[in-house]
């Protein structure tokens, strides 16, 4: 298994697609960062306009934490598509290049082979998010400094700087689970669809439908609470003034269970079908 993982890592590191994806993510991050700066001052003006009549403000809210929050809002929609393209490529490229047959001629168990693909997809996703987190933190805090965070979720919630930093870190952790879910789904889609272009379309469709369902009331409480599209933005709950850590923990655990279901389904299907 270790050899398989090493081989997968080598493929990922050697292929130019990985670096294109990294560049694309950095460009998105930079653009989101710039728009966050311009959005930030407008948002604050609108949020605090009414309050200016009654209060003097001391201190600034246009700081690294607000920028990070706006970046978080934008990244979780823009980044998954790129992640899905790269991770699905782990499987579709093998079909396209015909290397799958070559590998299967070796003494390699099919389930181990596909499981290594899943593990590599997860590792790649976590690494990318970690890099993103580190780069945005460095940019946001070095340029805008620290300070209290203001967020509007039903009420105007203020968080002290240290508290805001903790919440943003946890939001990245929760967002990572959602990104891992998308990556796992894309590998599963690749197993079923095989062709890379078709897999990309299927992945994009999955992403769009998930985001649409996220905003729709499904009528049934269980579906509204635990259907996977509803769990994607669990990270937002970290910005409620009274944080329900149990609900956040449950949501992320259920999302991990969904990941395992997709991994099991993909592995089972790959194991059963003929390589041709």
């Amino acid at each position, binding site marked *: 298994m270790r050899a398989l993982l090493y081989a997968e890592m080598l493929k990922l590191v050697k292929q130019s697609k990985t670096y294109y994806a990294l560049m694309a993510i950095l460009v998105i991050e930079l653009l989101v960062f710039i728009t966050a700066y311009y959005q930030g001052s407008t*948002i604050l003006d609108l949020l605090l306009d009414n309050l200016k009549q*009654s209060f003097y403000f*001391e*201190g600034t809210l246009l700081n690294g934490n607000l920028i990070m929050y706006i970046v978080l809002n934008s990244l979780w929609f823009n980044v998954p598509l790129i992640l899905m393209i790269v991770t699905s490529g782990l499987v579709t490229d093998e079909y396209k290049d015909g290397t799958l047959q070559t590998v299967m001629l070796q003494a390699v168990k099919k389930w181990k082979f596909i499981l290594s693909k899943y593990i590599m997809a997860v590792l790649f996703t976590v690494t990318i998010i970690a890099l993103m987190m580190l780069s945005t933190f460095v940019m946001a805090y070095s340029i805008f400094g620290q300070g209290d965070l203001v967020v*509007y979720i039903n009420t105007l919630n*203020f968080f002290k700087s240290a508290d805001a930093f903790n919440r943003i870190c946890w939001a990245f952790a929760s967002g990572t689970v959602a990104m891992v879910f998308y990556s796992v789904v894309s590998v599963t889609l690749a197993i079923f669809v095989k062709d890379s272009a078709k897999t990309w379309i299927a992945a994009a469709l999955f992403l769009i439908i998930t985001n649409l369902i996220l905003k729709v009331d499904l009528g049934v409480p269980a579906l509204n609470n635990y259907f996977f599209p509803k769990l994607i933005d669990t990270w937002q709950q970290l910005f409620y003034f009274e944080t329900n850590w149990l609900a956040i923990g449950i949501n992320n655990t259920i999302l991990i269970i969904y990941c395992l279901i997709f991994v099991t389904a993909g592995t089972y299907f790959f194991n059963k079908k003929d390589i041709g």
Partner: protein
Amino acid sequence: MRFAFILLFILTSTLTNAQKIDADLLRIKQRMDSVQQFTANVILDLDVPFIKMPTKAAKIKYAKGKKMEFSSSDFVMLPRRGLDFSLNEIFKYPFITVDRGTETRHGKVLKVINVIPTDNRSDLALATLYMDTRASRIAESEINTRKNGTYNLLMQYAPGNSVLPAYVEATFAIERLKIPLNFMGKDTKIDRKKMRGMETKTGKIKMRFENYSIKLS
């Protein structure tokens, strides 16, 4: 005829009194004016239905004739009204006072007066002051302004003869927030009925003053 004469006497004496500025208020003002400067730490607790904010701390610095200065390592919201301990806002333009008798509040007998500005430039429309005449301090006030709405102040003092309050509670009307849709969290629900009912709400800010350093003249 005799009854009409007595009535005329009472009316005239009331009107004559009304034109004067209350002596207790002048005494309180004089006492407040003796504060040349002060610094204090203030602990702020905001109580507004649509704002959730942790307890904040700030430092305030006052010097007579200068604007009050604030500093804090956090982001703090300080009320525009309620920190005018020197009563400068009231004494800025000419006014008359009307004695409204006494009232017992929080176990204390307080003298109640109305302050009515006689100059149109004053933003003050009417102020009702509740004075602790024995301690020469303002205990409560209801301030109606022309442009900035109405606000109430409740002041509590540390035991002894301190000039400045140890606790101030300012109550004011506040308009509901107008939030742009694109800044609403995905979980934000728009309840139109609730929003309409929230057009104007009452907000409160509680300020606890600690470590006063007061320089008197």
